[in-house]
């Protein structure tokens, strides 16, 4: 293991063999940003094709590959690893631990990710093309009717699932066993809490996803009929299993974002988080409810009416804990002394747009109305308000918030604010009109559309290009900060920030809290 008091090793081997939580966190963050750019470029191809009616740039088969890979890369490659990276960097520093509980496994769980995505990306060059059945890969389109590359897709899902499970076990083991003396559960920062709950969700549902793709593999290659009616199976069973994983999965994505925002809003309001206890309980309630609402993705498959009603009521209930969270954040801001640096702007952007996404989510939960919304662009607009304005905005907030602590240099505030405003405007131009075309009857996942949807689609594409371009500014700002930002050595970058991570030196030394701090 070597002597821990040395600094990092030199060269490539530092990154290949590192067991340091900060190094691994950094690698996760860069990897997820690379995936964000890749998935984003797929989105740009989609929006370019949809710029005008008619087929211009790609053929319908390739279009389907793009929508599929965009979804898979963004969910599994960009958003999830970015929050794992953040967890790696911040959780040990927030709970006063010297490192993650299982540093060696930490290294593995990162390094199996890049090969998994290389395999997934390589399917683009295989005969028959990449998977083209949507990121939800409904059978039998993804089994009997799938291109040969589906086998590689299944393998990569297995590997990245394994990576997620290993990462989650590590986080749970760290939080449960490595907290500094005096750091009781109810004193942990909200980010640690939300991640702890997320990690439990991951351990519970990633194996379910693995089970679903294993069944697909068996149906394709070993002659079983889990999802084929011909052999006594049922394609709808696939949807039940997938969404039993898939619904908790969307909370896996959003809960850490809640955590980030719960750190940032108090810091810039200079006031403690309102209703800490109810925040914790609300998070737990959301996680629990996520297991009993999966079939709201399937209102149109022909469930018995009793089933529809159960899933409708359960889904509507989620609005209660989610509402509690939004009310708590607003109350935190109430009678604070706010300033609006870039992290706070992104957090407020999150709060506004996530709330809109929450409202459309409530509308979608109403089963009879969902018969009109289902699989239309209204759904696309809804989940981008939650996934992009929720998860990605909070991730941007997190990067600006902790970047000075990570590298000891201050980012360019003007550029950061510019990034926020271009993102915010571009995002809304891209996704708000999608509510309209969805309600007017435009189905999702179509490469071409009727003429009455043309204007809003063109607008949406323009917004998407603006949003996409703003991320290049983000990349530039971050790189410029790391290379040549104004050095800072203040322990507390933000005067209102609270927590153990702000008690260590800036930039954060390679090893922190080798002697545990005492928490009062």
């Amino acid at each position: 293991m070597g002597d821990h008091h040395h600094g990092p090793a030199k060269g490539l081997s530092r990154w290949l063999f590192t067991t340091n939580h900060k190094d691994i966190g950094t690698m996760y963050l860069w990897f997820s940003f690379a995936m964000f750019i890749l998935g984003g470029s797929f989105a740009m191809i989609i929006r370019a094709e949809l710029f005008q009616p008619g087929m211009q740039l790609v053929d319908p088969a390739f279009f389907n590959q793009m929508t599929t890979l965009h979804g898979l890369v963004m969910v599994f490659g960009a958003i999830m690893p970015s929050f794992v990276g953040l967890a790696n960097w911040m959780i040990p520093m927030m709970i006063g631990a010297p490192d993650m509980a299982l540093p060696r496994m930490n290294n593995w769980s990162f390094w199996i990710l890049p090969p998994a995505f290389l395999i997934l990306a390589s399917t683009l060059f295989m005969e028959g093309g990449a998977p083209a059945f949507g990121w939800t890969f409904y059978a039998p389109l993804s089994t009997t009717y799938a291109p040969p590359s589906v086998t590689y897709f299944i393998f990569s899902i297995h590997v990245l699932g394994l990576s997620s499970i290993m990462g989650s076990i590590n986080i749970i083991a760290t939080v449960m066993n490595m907290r500094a003396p005096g750091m009781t559960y109810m004193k942990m920062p909200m980010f640690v809490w939300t991640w702890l709950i997320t990690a439990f969700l991951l351990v519970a549902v990633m194996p379910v996803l693995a089970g679903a793709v294993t069944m697909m593999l068996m149906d394709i290659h070993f002659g079983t009929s889990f999802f084929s009616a011909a052999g006594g199976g049922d394609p709808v069973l696939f949807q039940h299993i997938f969404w039993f994983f898939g619904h908790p999965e969307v909370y896996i994505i959003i809960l850490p974002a809640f955590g980030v925002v719960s750190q940032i809003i108090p810091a810039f309001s200079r006031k403690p988080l309102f209703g800490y206890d109810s925040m914790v309980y609300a998070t737990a309630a959301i996680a629990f409810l996520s297991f009993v609402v999966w079939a709201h993705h399937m209102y149109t498959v022909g469930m018995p009416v009793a089933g529809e009603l159960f899933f409708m009521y359960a889904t509507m209930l989620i609005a209660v804990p989610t509402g509690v969270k939004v009310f708590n954040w607003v109350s935190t801001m109430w009678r604070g002394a706010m300033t609006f640096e870039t992290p706070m702007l992104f957090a407020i952007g999150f709060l506004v747009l996530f709330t809109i996404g929450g409202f459309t989510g409530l509308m979608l939960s109403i089963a009879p109305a969902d018969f009109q919304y289902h699989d239309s662009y209204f759904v696309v607009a809804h989940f981008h308000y939650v996934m992009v304005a929720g998860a990605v905005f909070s991730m941007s907030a997190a990067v600006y918030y902790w970047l000075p602590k990570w590298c000891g240099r201050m980012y360019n505030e003007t550029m950061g604010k510019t990034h926020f405003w271009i993102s915010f405007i571009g995002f809304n131009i891209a996704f708000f009109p999608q509510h309209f075309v969805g309600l007017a009857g435009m189905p999702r996942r179509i490469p071409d559309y009727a003429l009455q949807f043309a204007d809003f689609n063109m607008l949406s594409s323009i917004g998407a290009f603006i949003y996409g371009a703003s991320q290049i500014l983000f990349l530039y700002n971050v790189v410029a900060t790391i290379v040549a930002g104004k050095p800072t050595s203040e322990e507390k970058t933000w005067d209102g920030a609270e927590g153990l991570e702000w008690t260590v030196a800036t930039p954060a030394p390679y090893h922190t809290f080798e002697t545990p701090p005492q928490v009062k």
Partner: protein
Amino acid sequence: MLRLNNNPVLDTVIKLVTTAVAMFAFVFVVMVPLYDVLCDALGINGKTSGEAYTAVQAGVDESRTITIQFVATNNESMPWEFGPSVTMMKVNPGASNDTVFLARNPLPQAMIAQAIPSVSPARAAAYFHKTECFCFNQQPLDGETATDMPLQFIVDRDLPQDIKTITLSYTLFDITDLVDGDVAAR
């Protein structure tokens, strides 16, 4: 709290790995069978029982008639000619009824088919009992031959009063390759 190991970190890891493995197994040994049970009980998808009904009904309910509608679909490239001999029947609950579906294999080679039943409204599935059905077995048929495939059924006396029409659909799948590959269907 149960301790599985003296090292607290290892203890946590063992418990979590067990949970993950258990969840993977849960999909296969709980979710799949449970789904089948629920389908049978609630008639999800209009699935009907794959086994012959043997119970005896307490007489015929002459007071109401139920319209039974038969429809047939060929899945994908299934080339057989396949359809009901009569498209509609009026029956009394509790009474036993017979009909046949006609099938013809137009290809020169022998093939094997499997018919999958589905009942609509799905609520009625639990009350639609088949005492004999060609869908219970795989149906091999030599090239260029036709056959009558028998169906015998009883509509349960307890069928909810508001159901007046029941549609029975069969989808015919070509499973020649599946069987020839000598892989047992689930």
